[in-house]
């Protein structure tokens, strides 16, 4: 999903992290410089969110929990019987976004979806983002990530892979992902990514109670031994996961995980990283740009804070930062933990055919925490 372990401050870096950064500085000095600046920007109260780019929602899986399912043509056409006639972003729009983001000091893009490795124009999208200007990360379910693909991704300028593995028990992962053989493909993808010299983290969904299981501890241990970060994404009740409110964690799960961070190479989007203590990263740490140019403040919140076809990125970010739900700072996950916000989100998105809800219909400048 996201990469919080990228450059913030050089003061407390492991030797391994330092080596990675020096490598990046040698290859892509402009990107390295921008990443190094993020720490100072945050110190001044400025923001430099990662941009998750969802150009396509095509996917070869149909996972139990997928937040993107309701954005997919297969859902809109077969379940909702609607056709998405909204204007879609193209490569020129991505070039424009890359430039606008660069001018604001933003430095990181995650190509996500859907499944990026089924996108026909993936190489063009990477080029449009411009890997000489931005640190490019790719989310994947790993199915198509073999040695050849990994080398190719490295060659076109991708720096990092975020690979989804939702259980360390093969059968459970395959069942959750509704795809037999997917665990084995993830294991293959781990080696392929590392052998190709790509940075790698594993991304795993935390459902209620999992933090205390043997399986989860084994996964933490595996990642720690392998020196691969384990990014933990709390199950958010959106998309297909709306049907699984029982997945939503309790504070205890989050607190157990906070303790595990001390002993294992495991983290969430809210884990302090190299001097950055953002808490919930909506807008401050991440935004998502959907295929229709909408900007959402978090991958799992289906309320837009503006559309890039109409509003500048700067204005969209300002709107987000002045919204009381998203605003300057909170320690918990808004859509993963706050019952009131979850309720509002579930009610407002219920029955919606075209997500995200546009600015004004989900979020607006009139939002109040107490209404």
């Amino acid at each position, binding site marked *: 999903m996201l990469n919080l372990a990228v450059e913030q*401050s050089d*003061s407390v870096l492991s030797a391994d992290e330092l080596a990675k950064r020096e490598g990046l500085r040698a290859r892509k000095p402009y990107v390295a410089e921008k990443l190094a600046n993020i720490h100072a920007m*945050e*110190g*001044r*109260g400025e923001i430099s969110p990662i941009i998750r780019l969802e150009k396509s929602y095509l996917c070869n899986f149909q996972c139990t929990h997928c937040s993107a399912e309701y954005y997919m043509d297969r859902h809109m056409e077969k379940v909702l019987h609607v056709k998405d006639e909204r204007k879609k972003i193209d490569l020129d729009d991505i070039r424009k976004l890359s430039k606008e983001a660069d001018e604001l000091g933003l430095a990181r893009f995650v190509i996500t979806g859907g499944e990026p490795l089924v996108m026909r124009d993936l190489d063009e999208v990477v080029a449009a983002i411009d890997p000489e200007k931005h640190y490019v990360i790719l989310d994947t379910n790993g199915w198509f990530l073999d040695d050849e693909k990994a080398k190719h991704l490295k060659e076109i300028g991708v720096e990092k892979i975020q690979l989804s593995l939702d259980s360390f028990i093969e059968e459970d992962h395959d069942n959750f992902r509704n795809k037999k053989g997917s665990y084995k493909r993830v294991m293959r993808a781990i080696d392929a990514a590392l052998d190709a010299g790509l940075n790698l983290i594993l991304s795993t969904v935390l459902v209620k109670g999992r933090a205390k299981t043997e399986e989860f501890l084994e996964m933490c241990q595996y990642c720690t031994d392998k020196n691969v970060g384990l990014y933990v994404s709390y199950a958010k009740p959106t998309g297909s996961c709306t049907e699984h409110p029982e997945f939503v964690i309790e*504070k*205890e799960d*989050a*607190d157990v*995980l*906070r*303790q595990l961070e*001390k002993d294992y190479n495991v983290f969430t989007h809210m884990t*302090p990283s190299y*001097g950055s*203590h953002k*808490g919930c990263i909506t807008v401050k740490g991440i935004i998502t740009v959907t295929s229709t140019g909408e900007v959402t403040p978090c991958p799992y919140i289906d309320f837009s804070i503006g559309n890039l076809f109409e509003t500048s990125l700067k204005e969209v970010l300002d709107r987000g930062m002045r919204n*009381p739900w998203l*605003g*300057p*700072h*909170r*320690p*918990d996950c808004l859509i993963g933990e*706050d019952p*009131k916000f979850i309720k509002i989100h579930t009610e407002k998105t219920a029955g919606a055919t075209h997500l995200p809800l546009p600015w004004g219909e989900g979020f607006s400048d009139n939002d*109040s*925490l*107490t209404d």
Partner: protein
Amino acid sequence: MPETSPLFDEFGRCLPTGINAPAHQKTRRYFLIDKPDINYSASYERLNQAFSISDAISQEQYESRVTSILAEIADNKLMKPILNGAMAPFILPKAVYDDIGQAMESTFLPAVQSAFNSFFPDYDFKNHSPRSLNGQLSVAPGSRHQQVLDQMANEVVVGVYFPCLSEYSVPAAIERMATLPEQFSLAGGFDTSAAFVSMPDLLFRKEGYPPLLWLSGLVSTEQNVAYHFEAYGYDLTFNRRVHLGQVAEYWSSGLVMIG
């Protein structure tokens, strides 16, 4: 002009009346401190461990001075509802410190750390502040925090800390002082630290999240930066942060009454 309209709501939150700086008029009471019971004997033990005050004040004297502060509040119709909220009594040693930041680093934060560690052997207190506090902190104009430091210069201080300025920006907390009864001051570094020595579990919450507590009685040499205590899960942290004068549902400041 002192106020005659209500100062605190039924849960002890200081009402953000008559201020221009950002503060939420209403609260949904999401970031909360569970009102802990006061255990005077354990609190005194920890405070004595930290500040060696047993020659100057006994546990009985501590308890009776806190009780009289609370009685004074209870006697005043406007102030009384503050007692419905969380509070932590504390003792501060008789001392004068030329440099507040240095004293925080050398005395008060280590005191919080050892009190926290002995209370919660499995959890940690961490000072995340990225730079030394030496020379960084002074009393915020308008905060009345100087009252606490002046009294510390003369004697051992007994006081009560009330984290009741919830959902106030740092400037709003300072602005609010102008119309609060003069017995109140805005909490700074020493008093807030002593409150955590007294009650290391002040921000410990299992079922929900507690607020972040600013030391709004102090200003930093860096503009728009302030220091704070904050829980991280079951751990307690101290840190610096840019606040830009903004309000957040998660941010609170504290009042102190000494007596």
